[in-house]
């Protein structure tokens, strides 16, 4: 049974790793902790519902398209104007944006959770010896690892990646060397949107409802994961997100019944301890000296 717990934990961990990657990409590009990222997942959920009559491939493409457009609009309308502001202002801007999107969804789709059953084939379980592994877990792990590698390569090896990182650090100077920062940053939001769309499909595959509040709390864990992992690298972010999901599931699995309700308290105490030991995350960024 312990092995089964580990499998469960890997599944959850990977989903959060994926989510964290989308968050970390935008962070690494403009120093923005995008609280509204969870709302992209929610938008993904609603677009799955809207497209439910379509064939599965159309749902996938349609959802990606909708979420990417939403992500681009976010960048253009809300985040570009505050790009030069402090991290705090950007964070609160994203928070206000999240509020706005939530309420807009509330107005558009009502207060009640909307049932959703698409992609529920993903939760089919395979039996391997004693272990049960769901299709969703396998896909999530594979997708998370591929996206992590792809993003790492993109940022490290391609010109656009280098330009992305340069724009993050110093937009004025980036312009001075001829980088079209707006375009470059927008492309990061496109990628981040694609990831959010994938997350929404994988996440809602195990859920039964989408509601205006669906995006709110899941983003928090990814948030914490990103910081714990260290925002310096995609590997760090993915690791942080993964560990949050992994630890959460394992705590739930292994704590005795009376303490299980305190699982969150244990998890976040661990978070504090990790941060105290490694203030700039598990994999810290280099480049600063006195």
């Amino acid at each position: 049974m312990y092995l089964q717990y580990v499998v469960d934990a890997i599944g959850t961990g990977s989903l959060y790793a994926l989510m964290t990657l989308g968050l970390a990409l935008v962070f690494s590009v403009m120093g923005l902790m995008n609280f509204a990222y969870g709302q992209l997942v929610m938008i993904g959920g609603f677009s799955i519902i809207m497209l439910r009559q379509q064939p599965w491939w159309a749902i996938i493409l349609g959802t990606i398209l909708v979420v990417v457009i939403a992500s681009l609009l976010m960048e253009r309308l809300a985040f570009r104007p505050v790009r030069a502001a402090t991290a705090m202002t950007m964070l609160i801007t994203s928070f206000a944006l999240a509020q706005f999107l939530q309420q807009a969804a509330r107005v558009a789709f009502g207060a009640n959770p909307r049932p959703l059953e698409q992609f529920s084939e993903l939760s089919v379980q395979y039996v391997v010896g004693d272990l049960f592994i769901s299709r969703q877990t396998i896909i999530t792990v594979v997708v998370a690892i591929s996206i992590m590698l792809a993003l790492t390569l993109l940022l490290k090896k391609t010109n656009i990646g280098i330009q992305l990182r340069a724009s993050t650090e110093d937009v004025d100077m980036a312009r001075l060397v001829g980088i079209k920062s707006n375009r470059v940053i927008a492309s990061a939001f496109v990628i981040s949107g694609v990831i959010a769309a994938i997350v929404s499909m994988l996440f809602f595959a195990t859920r039964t409802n989408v509601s205006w509040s669906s995006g709110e709390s899941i983003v928090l864990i990814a948030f914490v994961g990103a910081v714990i992992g260290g925002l310096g690298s995609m590997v760090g972010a993915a690791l942080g997100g993964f560990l949050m999901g992994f630890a959460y599931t394992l705590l739930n699995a292994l704590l005795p019944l009376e303490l299980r309700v305190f699982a969150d308290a244990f998890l976040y105490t661990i978070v504090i301890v990790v941060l105290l030991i490694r203030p700039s995350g598990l994999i810290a960024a280099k480049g600063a000296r006195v």
Partner: protein
Amino acid sequence: MNDRVSAWSRWVFLALPLIIPLIVITVLIAVTNDISLVQRASTAMILMVMVVGLHIFSGNSGVISFGSVAFAMIAAYTSALLTIPVEQKPSLFPDMPGFLSWIVEFSLPVPAGIVVAVLFTGVVAVIVGVPLVRLSGLSAGIATLAFLVVVQVVVTKWKAVTRGESTMVGVPKEATLWWALAGVVLAIAVAALFQVSRNGRRLIATREDDKASMSIGISIPKERLVGWTLSCMVAATGGALYGHYISTFSATTFGFALTFFIVAMLVIGGMGSLTGAVVGVLVVQVLSEFFRTLETQGLGPIPIIDFPGLTEMVLALILLIVLIVRPSGITGGTEVADWFARRKSPESSAS
């Protein structure tokens, strides 16, 4: 600022331009005797205590804290436990653990309860602060957020003492408009005093450049701890007042929603300035009350907007626009005092 002015007069310039209008407004509102206006003003001012509290640490140190609501919560619960009438306590806390059984046996008057709660919260703040003030940036934000989660879980699950998921009830509902005003005046006075004090100025230096401040003998953990503790205690005052104002509350009352709301008010007002903290609360509260009025009564020619969620949506949109138009906040991080000072030409005051 003029070089001749003493710290005392700098305090006056900082605090009075904020305190006096607040007193005037409060008196005017009290005179109207319009219950709903009084209510709204009280809520706004209690929130202002919390925002000013947050400003003392985050505004001056530049370190994000999402934990101040946790301290407000601790104080609200502590003061509630101390002040609930003795007759009600046995039925409300039948399982109070042995080492806390003394709480059931007496009850304090509300002002005393608040003072004890704030002092107790201060002690907690020091204990938590000693390790946490070593963190900066997002790490500090996340660590304080984590602390909030831990406190919330404990408050929610420690049923015997906190009544768990059940609401805290029986809390004397004594905080009035005047209490709220007293709280705000005290908070602003303390914040302004801190800002002109040696500790406050050193803390501001660490916000500007950590390495440089170390190089001139400033101890970052020490200065942050002072600011942090003070900040938590002011937030605690707000929390305790809030508890005695709404009189029934639970851990969800002091959750992420309130946290982000408070931080948002600080940022919208202009992070780094006390004036910003005050202005931010006023603007956000006036706006949201304006929309609530639209929703419930309509306003002049505008009919009642009875479409749930619409006003929240518009309010969020307006806040978003404020942030976009003024990313550094409405005050841009300056104080009323700076506007006075700017009148004077640098040459005349430097000689």
